[in-house]
């Protein structure tokens, strides 16, 4: 996306958020209406789609949340991802699984009978993964000799990473008990096992890492089904 498109997208999303928040003054008192509580389970759609479109990537994620109070939901994601980092000078393959646990806060007051959400949430993320350095080209400023490429692969097993994630998103009930959701995430890595004389180029669940920053970003689109358990 170009800078212009990125800017347009951000402005339009912010406008959407504002326009939906503007409605909250006119809501009715919902305290007498019984609300559905239950377990909501689903899958992230963005990861299978990316698996189809991006030959270097494959991933799958199950999402779940459980309503614990009027505004709060306990939430978790469980997934697996693999990514083939293939750049000019470096090729490495990362594979592993992750879990994220935390909570969402619904900041949106619904009209009676509607169950939509504008939510913010926090997650603690943990991943366990393997990384295989497949090939690299020695970087040199000298042009006199042909480039040296090493292709002896080296495997780093049992790596782990921990991070915190802040998420912002929307959920809409499209049919009875069936929800679609979109969210963006800002992540901050707490700690990771660095392979000796190498680095984690990708962490399952966290995504691409950066050389000069411990922040990361992510996004998700999910579809989920609410299993109603009780009303209160």
């Amino acid at each position, binding site marked *: 996306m170009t800078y212009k498109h*990125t800017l347009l997208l951000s402005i339009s999303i912010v406008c959407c958020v504002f326009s939906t928040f503007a409605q*909250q003054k006119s809501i009715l008192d919902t305290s007498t209406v019984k609300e559905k509580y239950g377990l909501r389970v689903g899958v992230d759609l963005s990861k299978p789609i990316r698996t189809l479109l991006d030959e270097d990537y494959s991933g799958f994620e199950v999402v779940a949340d459980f309503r614990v109070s009027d505004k709060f939901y306990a939430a978790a994601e469980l997934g697996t991802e693999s990514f083939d980092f293939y750049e000019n000078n470096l090729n490495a393959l990362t594979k592993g699984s992750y879990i994220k646990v935390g909570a969402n806060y619904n900041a949106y007051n619904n009209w009676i009978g509607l169950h939509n959400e504008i939510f913010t949430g926090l997650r603690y993320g943990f991943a366990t993964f393997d990384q295989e350095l497949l090939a690299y080209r020695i970087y040199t*400023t000298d042009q*006199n000799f042909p480039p040296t490429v090493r292709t002896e692969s080296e495997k780093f097993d049992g790596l782990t990473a921990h991070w915190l994630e802040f998420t912002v998103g929307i959920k809409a009930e499209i049919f009875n008990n069936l929800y679609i959701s979109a969210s963006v995430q800002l992540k901050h890595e707490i700690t990771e096992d660095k392979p000796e004389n190498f*680095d984690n180029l990708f962490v399952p669940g966290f995504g691409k890492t950066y050389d000069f920053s411990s922040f990361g970003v992510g996004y998700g689109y999910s579809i989920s089904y609410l299993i109603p358990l009780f009303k209160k």
Partner: protein
Amino acid sequence: MKKAALRFSILVFFVAIAIGCTRDDICDANTPTTPLLIITFKDFTNPLISKPVRGLIVETIGPNGVTIINRVTTDSIAIPLKSSENNTKYRFTRSETAPNAGNPNNDIVSFTYETEDVYVNRACSFKTIFKNLSNTIDAEGNGSWIRDLNILNTRIENDLQTHITIKH
């Protein structure tokens, strides 16, 4: 809480976009990568004095020989070592001479070393450092213009300081 949450969400959203658009796939030219071998030339009779070599030619030997330094009068050079091998052979030629200082002359210097690859970052990938550097000099039949070669540091990790001095 709602308002604070909203403001925070918007902030997070913009920070996320800013991070997502950061480029880190181009190796910064200031990043130290594979070092060059730094050689300075000194006067044989007084090693404290730098002595430029007149019309220095430095080239590799063989059918795919390349000329690294071509007829330059200088008292210091930086030349590459091959990361793909444990040996790099150079022909050092002094092509011009001062009056009464002898004829054009070439010597073959063979550098032998061990290589070790060190991870730099995702854009620069790996660099090679060279260890246990040693050398031999072959006068190629017509006497040696290199009178003495000193390896100051057998470990070539960066190109900030002199690794070798040659007296002539």
